[in-house]
């Protein structure tokens, strides 16, 4: 059963060959067997999931089943679930239970899916290795001495290890795409404004977007259809209707124009990554697409602009964790200012504090114009550059990360090196664009390599269509890690 895709699993449940309760208990069993090694889950809601599976199973006969009815799912732990702990992998939210569901959680339940647990991540989604959380690092199923990527490392590792058929992540600067590449799974970072952020605990509000992670593009597309759509509670969610990808099924890609940013392959990229990504480009050519090289402008400004904007917003978003209302409060504090200072100093981890300080600095008077305002100007230029590119190309094919998964602890003390790992992903968030992350082979050590297809705003259908063609022609996404299974 664990080898079925999410769509196959739901078909089997709807056809009465399997029950939702069998599916849920099989996946809970998988988590219990393997997660001691991976640490992909922060919490597993066994009883709640079993009760919910029974309720879903009763509806299977009647009601309105969906293509994902009965499918178990797990959610990154920065997405609010009513009555169950939502930690952001931080000590700061110790004991906090939301009183409401994120909009997407309600949507998953309405679609007949069953949430079985919450997934590990970098603290408050700040990091690219899922090592910064308060509950220990996520380990890569392909090599447990290596990182799973981040910040949605738990979401990618759990899907890769078949602890769950589908998961939910969030992407602020690459946090869905990069762990997918490191773990050899498929993910979608939707257009900013396609999926409601209501209930997603904000890292950087103008960049955050929730998206699906799974073992193939069809499962991800089905899940994205479920979670997308307008929401009265999120005014930045400007999409008119949920996505419908049923039409995006092509045999070939004749006439599709793909841009390949030449300068992304020049310096700092691993040879094995370069080779696998260029091979993917070749595959698209063979499927009928034209691939044309171009120079991506503003490359050296992308990472700085991203970190200035993301940290500025984070410094404000994370101010509400003050030790007064919920979550962690230092027991050494005696005065109001000590409650603030000590609770925040003790409750937040190093990377979060680094980003809060950086963000506070770039917004402070006298520095706003030099940093924050400049970064906004660069952001506008990047948006314009992409608009120009999408007049020439249908999509852009690029690496996701310059390397494959590195060793646990290898980069944790070198923030600059860690930040430069985001070079290919952050501009997509700055411009609010959609991208799919797809596996395209392995490096010399047998570690997965991924690439991304970037599209114009709300051009998800094109990207999904192209990804389907690619996955029909290749088998990289069907490979399973041996190490942890």
């Amino acid at each position, binding site marked *: 059963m664990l080898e079925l895709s999410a769509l196959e699993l739901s078909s089997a449940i709807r056809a009465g060959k399997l029950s939702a309760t069998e599916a849920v208990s099989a996946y809970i069993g998988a988590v219990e067997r393997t997660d001691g090694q991976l640490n992909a889950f922060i919490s597993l809601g066994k009883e709640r999931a079993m009760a919910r599976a029974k309720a879903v199973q009763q509806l299977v006969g009647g009601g309105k089943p969906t293509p994902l009815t009965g499918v178990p799912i797990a959610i990154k732990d920065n*997405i*609010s679930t009513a009555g169950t702990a*939502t930690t*952001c992998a931080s000590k700061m*939210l110790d004991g*906090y239970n*939301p*009183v*409401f569901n*994120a909009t997407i959680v309600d949507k998953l339940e309405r679609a007949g899916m069953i949430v079985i647990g919450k997934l590990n991540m970098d603290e408050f989604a700040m990091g690219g290795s899922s090592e910064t959380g308060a509950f220990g690092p996520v380990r890569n199923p392909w090599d447990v001495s290596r990182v799973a990527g981040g910040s949605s490392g738990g979401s990618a590792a759990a899907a890769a290890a078949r602890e769950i058929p589908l998961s939910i992540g969030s992407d602020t600067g690459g946090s869905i795409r990069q762990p997918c590449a490191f773990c050899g799974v498929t993910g979608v970072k939707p257009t900013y404004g396609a999926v409601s*952020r*209501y*209930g*997603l*605990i*904000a890292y*950087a*509000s*103008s960049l955050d977007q929730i998206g699906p992670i799974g073992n193939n593009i069809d499962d991800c597309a089905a899940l994205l259809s479920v979670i997308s759509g307008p929401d*009265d*509670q*999120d*005014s*930045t969610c*400007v999409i008119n209707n949920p996505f419908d990808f049923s039409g995006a099924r092509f045999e070939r890609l004749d006439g599709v124009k793909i841009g390949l940013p030449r300068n992304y392959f020049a310096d700092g990229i691993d040879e094995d990554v370069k080779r696998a990504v260029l091979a993917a480009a070749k595959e698209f050519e063979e499927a009928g697409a034209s691939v044309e090289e171009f120079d991506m402008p503003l490359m050296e400004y992308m990472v700085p602009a991203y970190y200035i904007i993301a940290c*500025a*917003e984070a*410094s*404000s978003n994370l*101010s*509400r*964790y*003050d030790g*007064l*209302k919920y979550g962690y409060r230092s027991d050494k504090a005696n005065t*109001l200012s000590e409650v*603030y200072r000590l609770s925040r100093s003790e409750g937040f981890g190093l990377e979060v504090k680094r980003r809060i300080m950086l963000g*506070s600095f770039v*917004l*402070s*008077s006298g520095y*706003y114009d030099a940093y*924050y305002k400049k970064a906004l100007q660069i952001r506008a230029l990047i948006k314009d550059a992409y608009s120009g590119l999408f007049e020439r190309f249908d999509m852009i094919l690029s690496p996701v990360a310059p390397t494959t998964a590195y060793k646990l602890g290898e980069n944790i003390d070198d923030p600059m090196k860690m930040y430069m790992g985001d070079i290919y992903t952050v501009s997509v968030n700055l411009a609010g664009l959609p991208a799919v992350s797809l596996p395209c082979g392995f490096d010399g050590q047998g570690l997965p390599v991924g690439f991304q297809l970037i599209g114009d705003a709300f051009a998800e259908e094109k990207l999904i269509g192209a990804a389907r063609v690619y996955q029909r022609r290749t088998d990289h996404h069907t490979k399973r890690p041996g190490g942890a299974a």
Partner: protein
Amino acid sequence: MKWETVIGLEVHAELSTKSKIFCGCTTDFGGKPNTHVCPVCSGMPGTLPRLNRAVVEYAMRAGLVLNCTITQKCKFDRKNYFYPDLPKAYQVSQLYAPICRDGFMEIESGGHKKRIGIREIHMEEDAGKLLHDPQSGTTHMDFNRCGVPLLEIVSQPDFKSGTEALSYLEQLRETLLYLGVCDCKMQEGSLRADVNLSVRPVGGEMGVRTEMKNLNSFKAISRAIEYEASRQIEVLEKGGKIVQETRRWDDDKGESYGMRSKENAQDYRYFPEPDLLPIEIDDEWLARIRETLPELANQKRERYIRDYGLTEFDAAVLTGHKNISDLFEDVLKRSGEPLESAHLITGEIMRLMNGTNTPPEELSPDPGKLANLVSLVLSGKINRNAYKETVEAVFTGDVDPEAYIAEKGLIMVSDSGAIHNAVAKVLNDNPGAVSDYRAGKDRAFGFLMGQSMKMLNGTGDPGMLRKTLKETLDNQANL
């Protein structure tokens, strides 16, 4: 040296929209602590604001009557600071593109007209309240007020005296009330003002200013201005320097003290609010708001004098509060009698309000019933005595006027037989007064008139009664 005072005002007006600026919670004042809250206004992690369009419309109305330019693409910004009454640790406000700019208001002070500049008006959310319990030494947070919409109306430093500042505040208050955007109850904090003040030698360079907060009444504002101006002059005359600082007014002690100086000033780290889209105000929306602007007090005064022939005094009384002019116009609409309706309000109703200590905010007599009484007195169904008595009964007990009149027998007696009988009996019972009258004592006529009216339970037609009494007395004399 001769000094002059330079004052600017920042007025915070809580808007009287039904729901808060970014969620559906009620804006009602009071309520048990933390009962008017939801995850959004209490700033729970993951929640997002959604803008109440009524707030934008209220701001546009205020901006238009204050002659401002409306920013057709305006934005919200975050003002970041830590305080327990601010659950998100930032206030959503407007810094870079406030909704209204560059307006003015004409005020009258000391017989002169003066134009006061309005620098800007911006929309923002209110914070909660902290309740300190001195007994246990604990502090409790009440988030009911969090997210109540506010307009901050920032004037230019155009005031030279407390009198001018008060005149502006009174007129601004009246304007906001007539617009229906704020109930302007200072005691409930729905209208608050901060004072920026500096002094300088007459005609000299601008001085260093201080900002005063915690001013909870017009009287406190006036006293605080007086205190601060003389404090600054005293410091400067002794050769000292004014420190740019925020000062807190203590109304009980009648003095202010420094809270924080500029060196310790907060850096609010303003930046654009990423959770809200810019607000696009198109010409059509703006035109619709412009068309639905209500008539303001000064416009009403002019119209009352011009169209209804009211005196300036009566027009001023009627426009002293929106509820009073609303009542007048409602009674007038139903009765069609401008003068009688006006005099009803300026006379009986004002007397009853004073007598019962009813503030205009609580003025609630049924305009339909009052209009009914206006018709009854004008058509001669009741006389003035009965009119006054019934108006009072409507005002205090909301009685049905027709039923009340019938029950109390207040219908005017114009039946000549009844009047003749009453007069005959009074003359018969009061021979002394009759002979006084004949001796030329005019006061005796009044006495006999009163006795006759009394005989008719106060409901006699006064004209007819007077005529009958006079004729009877004169006829008897001729006998």
